[in-house]
């Protein structure tokens, strides 16, 4: 039952471990595809969740200690912050700064990134994807940290509300 009793799980669940090993890369690839593979806006939330689900599968199959090795808890805070910086900082505030206070928050057209990189001139194509990555990383880190907090045996810290 308990997830931290790693030994028991390792003895029992060869099938689950093998299948998890096979599945995790594909789940992560799918998450990335949902996040940035499509040209339109949206997908950050779902992609982030799918990525988080892959980590949770890792923890369920191999135990919490292996999970911590792959993604230490300290990183979660960094990922959350950096993701949100990408979302609100680059995607939002830069719009205002680039256009010298003329364009609105989240108005990606104001960032001339498409011209610099040379992508298609569709509305905010490149910036949109960067922002999606930001949202996805934040959601992933938030979900993984909530899961770690729930699994952890020592005193837990309330998390949540980090989603926007």
């Amino acid at each position, binding site marked *: 039952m308990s997830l931290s009793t790693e030994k028991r799980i390792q003895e029992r669940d060869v099938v689950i471990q093998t299948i998890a090993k096979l599945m995790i890369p594909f789940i992560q690839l799918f998450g990335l595809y949902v996040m940035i593979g499509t040209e339109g806006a949206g997908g950050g939330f779902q992609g982030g969740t799918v990525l988080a689900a892959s980590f949770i599968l890792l923890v369920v199959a191999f135990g919490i200690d292996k999970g911590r090795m792959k993604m230490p808890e300290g990183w979660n805070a960094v990922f959350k912050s950096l993701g949100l910086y990408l979302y609100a900082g680059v995607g939002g505030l830069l719009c205002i700064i680039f256009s010298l206070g003329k364009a609105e928050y989240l108005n990606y057209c104001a960032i001339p990134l498409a011209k610099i990189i040379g992508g298609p001139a569709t509305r905010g194509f490149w910036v949109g994807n960067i922002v999606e990555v930001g949202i996805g990383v934040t959601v992933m880190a938030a979900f993984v940290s909530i899961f770690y907090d729930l699994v952890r045996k020592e005193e837990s810290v*309330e998390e*949540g509300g980090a989603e926007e």
Partner: protein
Amino acid sequence: MIEWIAQHIVAKYNFWIAIVIMLTGLYATVAKGNLLKKLIGLTIFQTAIFLFYVSLSDVGTLSGLGLHYGTAPIVWEEGIHRGYMYVNPLPHVLMLTGIVVSAATTAVGLALVVRLYEEYGTLEEERIMEKEMEIDKRGT
């Protein structure tokens, strides 16, 4: 009478079922004594509201041959030329946010449930109240 039933109940069965599920969830949230069960009820309640919203977006027309429903809200050129009707995507987008909010609420609730169990050693609301009363008596 039959017409009224056909128009208000059969044609809108999605909404009726959504309301049945909603009330099931609300009942569990209010009446169950177990803290985890309350959260399960809350999740059911919220999901039923999302079903209500998605049902709203599912537009269709009643033609001579029966009901014609819209396709998924993916716009492609051929589809536009052939006049496909697509379902309203706005409630879908709203519900994406709703689902994330609901998951976050459940997560905070679960963290509280775990802490409460560590504190009182039980998940039953009545037991917790009894223990709180005991603490109060000892305190004064």
